[in-house]
């Protein structure tokens, strides 16, 4: 199986500190790859390198190669790349000035994914249904996102990313601060979404990795210390750090 995202000897330094050192990985098509590791191991940085959001940090130095769909990320226009490889951040960030509907519709309109009003409405509904939010918000689409709970806001943010029809969906601990019911809904959505796209999920929760992941990469001190199919790594972890992570000691 070919790689949708491939990193070779990836090194990232932030303000002189090495955050990722010699990372190699191959994210497979239509899979959910889970990245686990203790805090500060470079998980979020890895996601930010993949869609070139790291460039917003003037102190970041990146070397090595990252190839997306066969093309080096520096051959992509960064804005275009971010439409194919969308990142959803840990903290839900619906735009406070826009309604629930407009939060989802805006990226679709700006990126030309949907042009007519009917197309936009259809796409917004599709995205909200994908994250199981449609029934909960269909009667208050014109309300601001502040009326939603934290978990609903996060699902709104995932829906907002989905309207771009990305090839790769990067999720940075999307369920870190939300309740179990919303967490399960997000996990169900992800399992369904992988039919249409490739998902990279950063998580702290081994149970979540086991529930949704196909492959796992364990990051420790900026290096991938273990990787493989989730079942295999969970049953036979080779590294002590992996064992501790799975036992939630780290």
């Amino acid at each position: 199986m070919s790689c949708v995202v491939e990193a070779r000897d990836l090194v990232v330094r932030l303000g002189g500190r090495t955050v990722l050192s010699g990372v190699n990985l191959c994210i497979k098509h239509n899979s959910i790859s889970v990245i686990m590791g203790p805090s500060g191991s470079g998980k979020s940085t890895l996601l930010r390198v993949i869609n070139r959001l790291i460039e917003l940090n003037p102190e970041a130095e990146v070397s090595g190669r990252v190839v997306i769909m066969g093309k080096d990320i520096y051959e992509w226009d960064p804005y275009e790349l971010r439409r194919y490889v969308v990142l959803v951040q840990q903290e839900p960030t619906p735009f406070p000035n826009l309604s629930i509907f407009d939060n989802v519709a805006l990226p679709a309109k700006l990126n030309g994914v949907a042009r007519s009003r009917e197309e936009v409405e259809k796409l917004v509904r599709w995205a909200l249904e994908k994250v199981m939010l449609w029934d909960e918000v269909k009667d208050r689409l014109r309300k601001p996102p502040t009326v939603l709970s934290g978990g609903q806001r996060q699902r709104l943010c995932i829906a907002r990313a989905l309207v771009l029809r990305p090839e790769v969906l990067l999720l940075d601990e999307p369920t870190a601060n939300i309740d179990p019911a919303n967490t399960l809904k997000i996990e169900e959505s992800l399992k369904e979404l992988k039919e249409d796209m490739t998902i990279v999920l950063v998580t702290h929760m081994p149970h979540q990795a086991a529930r949704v992941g196909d492959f796992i990469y364990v990051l420790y001190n900026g290096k991938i210390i273990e990787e493989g199919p989730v079942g295999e790594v969970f049953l036979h972890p080779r590294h002590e750090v992996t064992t501790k992570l799975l036992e939630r000691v780290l």
Partner: protein
Amino acid sequence: MRKGDRAFYLLLVPSLFSSAILMLILIHVTTVSLPAFVDRGLSLLTSVMWSPPTQDYGLLPALVGTILTSLISIVVVTPISLSIMFLVGDLLPRGLSRVFHRLVEVMGALPTVIYGLWGGFTLSRFLHGTVYTWLHDYLSYIPLFSCRPLSGQNILTAGVVLGISMIPYASSLLIEGYRAIPSRYIETAYSLGFYRFETYGLVTSIMKPLLIASIMLSMSRALGETTIVALTIGNAYVASPCLLSPGITVSAWIVSQFESAFIYPGALPALYAGALLVMVLSLLLSFLGIMLISKWRGVIYG
């Protein structure tokens, strides 16, 4: 009483003092101006005559000048301050942004008389020889440019210089607001593939209440500005919708008439009435501006 409590009451005195001063000023201005409102009624606001010997006191020319110059200043200051905000907040590298921001702040430390002198003697001549003649020649069918510009000292120049003088204040407010926006919103926009200008559009719409508040606060300052206006507006007591004609504002008129107002009966209350109107409008704008800012903060961090 504990030491800490004593310090609290000691610190309370200056704030009570300033609030008391504000109240005293309000009472004083209202009391002195009241006869003008009672004696002249609506004609105080609608008459264009100011003739102390015949005791005709109408404030319309000064009110029109005040409103026009304030509105022009807003048209000037808003786009420039927004550009400075994006330049300092996002586009310039950190070191250069700091230097540029300091330069803008230094602009705010210039005495208004300097802006007035530059506007009245340099900018007005330049605009008269270039922009104003062109505006009249080609756009005279619009009432705003219908009169022939006799000199560069007119309502438009006063408004433009007022706007320039407010740039440091308005841009500081906006830069502070831009920095208060959690960076996650801007990162989210970029991570959804927004181009830089699309992100700026989003930021501007997130900041809309703050932008309106900064316009209100800037306008509340522009309403009372005197020195710049006195040196740039041409000081003619006429009520004209044409921006190329000389005019006057309430504060500039008060300064020019204050000496003689003690001689002619009824002049002082009429001048005070003008001051009261400007003060009430200015306080109202400030109050609404501050309310908007606090509401906006609630939405952003809520």
